[in-house]
């Protein structure tokens, strides 16, 4: 390394640099400002704007700092007459065709062009000729284009190619006619597309939902943590008055680098949805009535008290959203346990809990987020990581581009924006068998021994070259991981997938990790919102009912926190039925909906993200605390405050918290150290059932349907990543049933049937029916996986 160290001189200061670095990297690292438009530290160097011209001794003309490699002894002047004149001339060129419409431009006030024009631009334009005008393109619901303002830096184009892995923007035409755009009218469709808003140095690409709703200098910037996946991306929340106006990424190299997923960027619109519940409401003889909090609390105390008294605490079920804060989760379970129930859970989209005792402290990613980049091999089981955890996918993509073998075992042929080494697409029922075959191949190649029970299990399985290849790629990599995704977690035989995945990891010397679903999936485990574990992962002596059992058993009373059971649970029909038949449903909810109004008895308006302080623990075990930055809508209050008061109303001990940080201190004390290991006690597989011949249902949760906030974020709802309430079947199955695109099909599960549209979708394997959850049309069907029947309607 030291051989590579050289010394250069910039503006009279001597600076250390490494060979091969570009000049601008050194000046940036040393706080010497060089103006730029096209250079961006996360993108390749294009050197097309020429704004970064500086004087380099012995060079005959100014050189672009972003594309000039440093050399030992190089002497650079960034502010000399030559440099500044060059920069000024470039500025004059750039402004020739720029409309100078800052007063009506959303970028005004945070525009790199505007800033630099102040520093380098002339007062009066010498250009008298006609300026060119570029017609705006409609590139979808999220990004507004004003392409006359474009300065052709190509950052947006390079982002597509290099980061999104999907080249949608391009520079068409030539010379004066060159235009940035998609050429044909189309929506840019990346799950990370919003980042080009930040990248664009001018106002050519701005946020469509934000458009014309505030001037940037009126905005106050606060820090926050993104609430929709288990990554915990750092965000800046931009506020005007008491409203969130915009969300942008905050730099954190260890987590989201400089990026943000579209879901985390645009979900804030859900805060101001018309569905927001403004006041506490109680149902009296079937009629909803707005009340004040005091009355509502009395009603809760009285109704809950009498339900507990007449049916016992075992008839109370408590369900929480896994995107609740750690403090809310902790208090909720504290109350539940204090009133005598262990029926508490936030694992809503899971059904197989049989090995829940063997999990370590919490299902951990298995590595740090940044280290995903240096993996040599990864096997993903049941995961559409690109849409589910876009930032994690971005790290995997970087690994793949460096040559890592990323392999998939999935029930749907999802599209990935990097080369996938091998993929096996099978019906959910066949997934365990595939894993067993990989395990067998692994044992064969490595010659390791395994326990007798497992051996018997896998003895008669046929293995193919694909299995051998996957086994080899894992076994021969220095750094490999087996990752279980959201679909694996929802699988009816999750425990079997888990034990097989664990064995594969063990015998290939790979890590094992989980891609968890929600912002606080880890916090759910650590705070004890589980029927079998208390806060800190301590085993509970009494084990309560898990989510699925709570719904199946149709309890007398439920308390819901941020959950719309019919949308969020594994068995939507069971959830709806349980709610409708319960005597008492108390819903802590930010939103009202026809469904909630039907089954709930009390609706308490609670805050959503940005309105409440709290803590999320991400998939990698980092705990991140954030403040509430805007007042809640209407009479809504942070759930932790309500829970504190409720604890006191029930005369429970230990509810005298003054702030959410008191609560946090208490949770953290019971957690102690967050243990990032997955040293789970694997159960060996006992048997592998052969697949049935039935049609199989597969359920996915489209990216923007994941929680109640996203479902109400209007612009996100206009994207492609929402539920369509249709059945997706492949051409062969459609043919067999005499169905074509847009036909209606009668779809049956158990004894329930609904009519749904048909979408012919060849990503779905034979004899499977893909349905997107959280859509009103399919609630009555029920279980996320299992047998299903279809016929022409």
């Amino acid at each position, binding site marked *: 390394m030291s051989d590579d160290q050289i010394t250069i001189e910039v503006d009279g200061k001597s600076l250390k640099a490494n060979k091969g670095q570009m000049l601008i990297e050194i000046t940036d690292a040393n706080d010497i400002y060089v103006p730029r438009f096209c250079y961006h530290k996360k993108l390749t160097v294009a050197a097309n704007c020429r704004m970064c011209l500086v004087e380099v001794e012995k060079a005959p003309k100014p050189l672009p700092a972003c594309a000039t490699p440093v050399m030992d002894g190089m002497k650079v002047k960034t502010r000399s007459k030559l440099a500044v004149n060059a920069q000024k001339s470039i500025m004059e060129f750039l402004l020739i065709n720029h409309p100078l419409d800052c007063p009506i431009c959303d970028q005004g006030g945070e525009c790199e062009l505007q800033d630099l024009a102040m520093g380098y631009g002339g007062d009066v334009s010498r250009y008298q000729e006609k300026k060119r005008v570029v017609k705006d393109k409609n590139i979808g619901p999220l990004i507004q284009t004003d392409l006359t303002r474009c300065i052709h830096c190509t950052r947006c184009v390079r982002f597509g190619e290099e980061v999104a892995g*999907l*080249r*949608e*923007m*391009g*520079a*068409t*035409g*030539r010379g004066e006619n060159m235009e940035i755009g*998609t*050429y*044909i009218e189309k929506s840019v469709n990346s799950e990370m597309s919003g980042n080009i808003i930040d990248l664009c140095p001018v106002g050519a690409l701005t946020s469509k939902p934000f458009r014309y709703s505030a001037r940037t200098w009126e905005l106050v910037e606060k820090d926050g943590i993104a609430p929709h996946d288990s990554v915990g991306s750092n965000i800046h929340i931009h506020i005007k008055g008491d409203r969130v106006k915009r969300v942008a990424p905050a730099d954190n190299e260890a987590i989201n680098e400089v990026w943000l997923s579209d879901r985390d960027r645009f979900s804030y619109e859900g805060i101001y949805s018309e569905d927001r519940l403004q006041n506490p409401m109680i149902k009296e003889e079937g009629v909803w009535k707005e009340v004040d909090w005091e009355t509502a609390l009395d009603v809760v105390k009285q109704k809950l008290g009498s339900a507990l008294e007449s049916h016992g605490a075992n008839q109370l079920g408590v369900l929480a959203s896994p995107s609740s804060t750690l403090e809310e989760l902790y208090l909720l379970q504290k109350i539940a346990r204090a009133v005598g129930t262990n029926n508490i859970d936030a694992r809503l989209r899971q059904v197989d809990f049989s090995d829940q005792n063997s999990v370590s402290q919490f299902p951990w990613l298995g590595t740090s987020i940044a280290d995903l980049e240096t993996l040599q091999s990864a096997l993903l089981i049941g995961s559409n990581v690109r849409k589910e955890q876009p930032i994690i996918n971005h790290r995997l993509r970087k690994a793949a581009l460096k040559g890592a073998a990323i392999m998939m075992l999935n029930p749907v042929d999802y599209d990935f924006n990097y080369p996938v080494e091998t993929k096996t697409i099978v019906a959910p029922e066949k997934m365990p068998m595939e894993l067993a075959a990989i395990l067998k191949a692994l044992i064969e190649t490595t010659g390791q021994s395994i326990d007798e029970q497992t051996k018997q299990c896998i003895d008669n399985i046929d293995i193919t070259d694909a299995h051998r290849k996957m086994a080899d790629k894992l076994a021969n990599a220095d750094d490999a991981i087996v990752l279980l995704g959201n679909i694996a977690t929802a699988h009816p035989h999750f425990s079997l997938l888990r034990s097989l995945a664990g064995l594969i990891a063990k015998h290939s010397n790979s890590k094992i990790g989980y891609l968890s679903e929600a912002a606080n999936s880890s916090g759910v485990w650590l705070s004890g919102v589980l029927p079998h574990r208390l806060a800190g992962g301590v085993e509970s002596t009494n084990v309560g009912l898990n989510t699925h059992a709570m719904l199946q058993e149709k309890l007398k009373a439920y308390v819901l926190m941020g959950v719309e059971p019919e949308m969020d649970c594994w068995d939507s029909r069971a959830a709806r039925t349980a709610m409708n038949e319960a005597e008492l449903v108390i819903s802590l909810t930010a939103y009202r909906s026809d469904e909630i109004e039907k089954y709930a008895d009390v609706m308490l308006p609670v805050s959503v993200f940005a309105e409440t302080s709290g803590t999320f623990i991400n998939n990698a075990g980092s705990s991140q605390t954030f403040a509430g930055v805007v007042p809640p809508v209407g009479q809504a209050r942070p759930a932790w405050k309500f829970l504190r008061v409720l604890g006191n109303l029930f005369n429970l001990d230990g509810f005298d918290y003054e702030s959410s940080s008191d609560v946090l201190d208490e949770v953290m004390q019971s957690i102690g150290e967050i243990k990032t290991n997955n040293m789970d006690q694997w159960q060996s597989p006992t048997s592998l059932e052969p697949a049935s011949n039935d049609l199989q249902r597969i359920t996915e949760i489209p990216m923007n349907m994941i929680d109640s906030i996203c479902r109400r974020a209007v612009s996100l709802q206009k994207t492609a990543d929402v539920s369509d309430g249709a059945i997706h079947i492949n051409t062969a199955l459609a043919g067999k049933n005499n169905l074509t695109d847009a036909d209606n099909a009668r779809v049956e599960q158990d004894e329930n049937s609904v009519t749904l549209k048909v979408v012919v979708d060849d990503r779905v394997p034979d004899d499977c029916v893909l349905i997107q959850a959280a859509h009103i049309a399919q609630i009555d069907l029920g279980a996320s996986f299992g047998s299903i029947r279809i016929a022409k309607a």
Partner: protein
Amino acid sequence: MTETAKTILTEHTRSEIDVWLKKYPEDRKQSAVLAALREAQHQNHGYLTTELMDAVAEYLGMSNIAVYEVASFYSMFETQPVGRHSISVCTNISCLLMGSDDIVEHVEKKLGIKTGETTADGKFYIKCEEECLAACCGGPMMMIDHKYYENLTPEKVDEILDGLD
């Protein structure tokens, strides 16, 4: 290659593209994009459609937009429907000095259209702004389809245009 590229690009077009593909390494298929677009344009009587460009993208394993970029950059590609015969009168410096303005004017008057337009019968198209075609010693000159005609006079232009079917 998938089915779409196959159905949209004719067998002849594909075999012509394949000749070019052989000249480049296996993982550098995009090198053949200019040749491929030329063939695709030829198959469609002188202009490219989005469909054709998408098919070329698919055939060469490029993103669609990358093909649009190339097609829209080079003036030898047309991305809008144009007449069967494409007339490019050079108006660059040598030709200009030799009177290319009169030639342009004559062609326009004769065909009753302006530069950039196509005749109503779809027979002729006068292309915009052609740069030096590297036949300066024969200026004024024009190119029709792929053929050069030099030392033009209005009479000569009449003769040439009348001779086309």
